[in-house]
């Protein structure tokens, strides 16, 4: 299919629907109401089918979109009311209520659909598209409707921005300020019903909930600030809508709804993996770097202390080379492990290596001195508190010293300028 007028109409319509769903979805997710869209979407089916039956029995065109969407809207509202009625007694939780409503309303729709198929008029024609979505059938006026709905939802969200924010983040504060959280929630539910119903023809009732959750969940991974989150969520929704519609325009047998949702899922997966602060890979990278840094400083400290134990300080006349095996024994490492660390630190220019022995370079000595100072500052501090015995202080200090900045170590020491002596004997660990 070429990028003709029809394709552009479909693209624009899906993008606008995605925009609306992304905007409303952000607030729905923050308020813990996102799955309401699932209930609304499924609940819409009997409404659509009944509307088609009514229209057909009055001799109208059962394919006309407005009455079908009106039916979906009524059924969606009924679904929301049913969820609220079920949860009122507190015996049935909201998750169960949503599952009950979405499954039994949908089942009613399925039963009605099977009844419609036995009717003489072709009333069932085109109803299947509401289940999985069929944006390809979108006409210019449908896209206009989508645009109108998107504009309406965005305007309402902007107008109610303060109230929605208060309801999402601090309902108690909102109550104190005299803003009725119940009324804000009602408005939010109304918006959810509207976008879920509007999204039906593009992505279908099974998947419409994804259009609310995926963009906003992606945005949440990327930012903490609400205005940014709204902007990101709305644009990701629009992008997912447009790209998904474009994909199914090129491959007409791909269902539009699935394509749109998969694009959204790809965005979400990328954010899950790569988001700078919360993403899995940056987090793993940070953790690995911390571990390497801690191991490095343990090695350098061991090298320093080996010199001290031999009665010489780095840079003094007695400065000498230390066997890697001695360092491995002091830390309780295996020799190959210690040798690999020596190789790594040699590459970083912190130690010099020769014949299984190492020697701290001036830069390495400075880093080692910082590590020793931090370690002993913590040790002496813990001992001064009487928090532990000498052996315990050594081990505890190993755990906490790495995040300790130099100024902090200075503040812990009685004589800031000096390097205190180790409280315990240096040498191989028992």
């Amino acid at each position: 299919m070429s990028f003709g007028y029809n394709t552009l109409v479909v693209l624009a319509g899906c993008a606008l629907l995605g925009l609306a769903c992304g905007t409303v979805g952000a607030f729905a997710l923050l308020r813990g109401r996102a799955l309401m869209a699932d209930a609304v979407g499924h609940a819409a089916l009997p409404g659509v089918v009944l509307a088609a039956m009514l229209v057909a029995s009055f001799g109208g065109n059962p394919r006309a979109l407005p009455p079908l969407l009106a039916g979906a809207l009524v059924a969606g509202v009924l679904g929301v009311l049913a969820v609220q009625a079920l949860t009122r007694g507190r015996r049935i939780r909201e998750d169960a209520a949503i599952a009950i409503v979405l499954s039994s309303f949908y089942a009613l729709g399925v039963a009605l659909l099977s009844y419609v198929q036995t009717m003489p008029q072709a009333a069932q024609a085109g109803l299947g598209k509401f289940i999985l979505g069929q944006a390809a059938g979108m006409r210019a006026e449908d896209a206009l409707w989508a645009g109108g709905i998107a504009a309406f939802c965005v305007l309402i969200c902007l107008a109610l921005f303060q109230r929605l924010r208060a309801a999402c983040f601090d309902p108690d504060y909102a109550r104190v300020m005299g803003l009725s959280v119940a009324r804000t929630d009602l408005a939010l539910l109304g918006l959810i019903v509207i976008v879920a119903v509007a999204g039906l023809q593009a992505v279908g009732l099974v998947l419409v909930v994804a259009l609310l959750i995926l963009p906003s969940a992606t945005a949440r991974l990327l930012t903490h600030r609400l205005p940014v989150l709204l902007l990101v969520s709305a644009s990701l929704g629009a992008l997912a809508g447009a790209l998904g519609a474009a994909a199914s325009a090129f491959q007409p047998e791909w269902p539009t709804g699935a394509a749109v949702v998969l694009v959204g899922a790809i965005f979400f997966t990328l954010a899950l993996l790569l988001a700078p602060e919360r993403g899995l890979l940056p987090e793993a990278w940070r953790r690995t770097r911390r571990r390497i840094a801690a191991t490095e400083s343990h090695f350098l400290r061991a090298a320093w202390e080996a010199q001290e134990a031999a009665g010489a300080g780095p840079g003094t006349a007695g400065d000498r080379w230390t066997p890697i095996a001695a360092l491995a024994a002091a830390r309780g490492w295996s020799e190959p492990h210690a040798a690999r660390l020596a190789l790594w630190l040699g590459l970083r220019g912190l130690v010099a290596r020769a014949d299984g022995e190492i020697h701290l370079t001036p830069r390495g000595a400075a880093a080692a001195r910082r590590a020793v100072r931090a370690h002993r500052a913590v040790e002496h501090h813990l001992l001064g508190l009487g928090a532990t015995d000498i052996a315990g202080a050594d081990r505890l200090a190993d755990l906490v010293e790495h995040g300790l900045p130099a100024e902090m170590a200075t503040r812990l020491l009685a004589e800031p300028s000096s390097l205190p002596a180790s409280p315990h004997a240096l040498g191989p660990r028992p």
Partner: protein
Amino acid sequence: MTAVDFLRLDLPAMLAAILACGLCGLLGSFLVLRRDSLLGDALSHAVLPGIIAGFAITGARAGLPMLLGALAAALAGVFLISLVRRVARLESGAAAGAVFTSFFALGLMLIEATGARSVDLDLDCVLFGQLESLVWLEAQGFASLLDPAALAALPRQIFLLAAVSIVLAGVVALLWRPLHLLCFDPDYAAAIGLPARGLELALNLMVAAAAVAAFEAVGSILVVAMLVCPAAAIRLLTDSYRAQVLGGAAFGAALGAVGYALAGPLPAAFGQAFALNAAGVIGTLGGFTVAGAMLLRQWRSAAPKPVAISG
């Protein structure tokens, strides 16, 4: 309608409905008690790509590869939901919603990409359930019920459902006490050394197995309905654990039987020409019973209580 017609057309479908609904009703109580009802929704959607992949790899609509694929997809779904919940800091419902819709969308794409649709994997049976397509053409009369050769020709979905039902009922009986604790006091269960996470995983696996077994016969949506409706209705009426779990199973099975009868055989018996989608009718009935249980509960609590006389 003759007895042979009943045996050929209605018995297998009714049997499948009873088994699937009873099985889901049994497990549903645990989901409702643990406030995890949407897990059924999530898993019954998430198995789709696994089923399609199993079908695509073996190229046959054989039972085992599809079953294994579905179980793998369900496990991946459970794992991803907990991962998403932790990393994206979403509440569990939203995390499940993000994962299962993605899986379902992937499944829809796979159907097209692998050409499964053109062969014989019908999307309609996923979306609507195809109880009506289960037939037992070998039945010659009630004598066939005792004839091993004829019984072997029952639709394979029934054997699968029966096997899974027996295994899961056994597992529930074995884990009766630990599951009780897990539902009502998971912290205490963990404190006395029960492997709470292992139990949760076992429960998830059981729901996945039930969803997979019931999926093809009754459709994904009826799985959701039967996992939650009978259990929720019973929950409104009793506080007893035993009544909850066993009642859920019995009530589910009864709903399956009654719903199936209402959909086709009863209208036919009264001379009506139409037959409704049985899965749809059973699910609708499930919703009505929850509403009915709600009214019953209100009526009970509104009725004057006997006054306790002290002294």
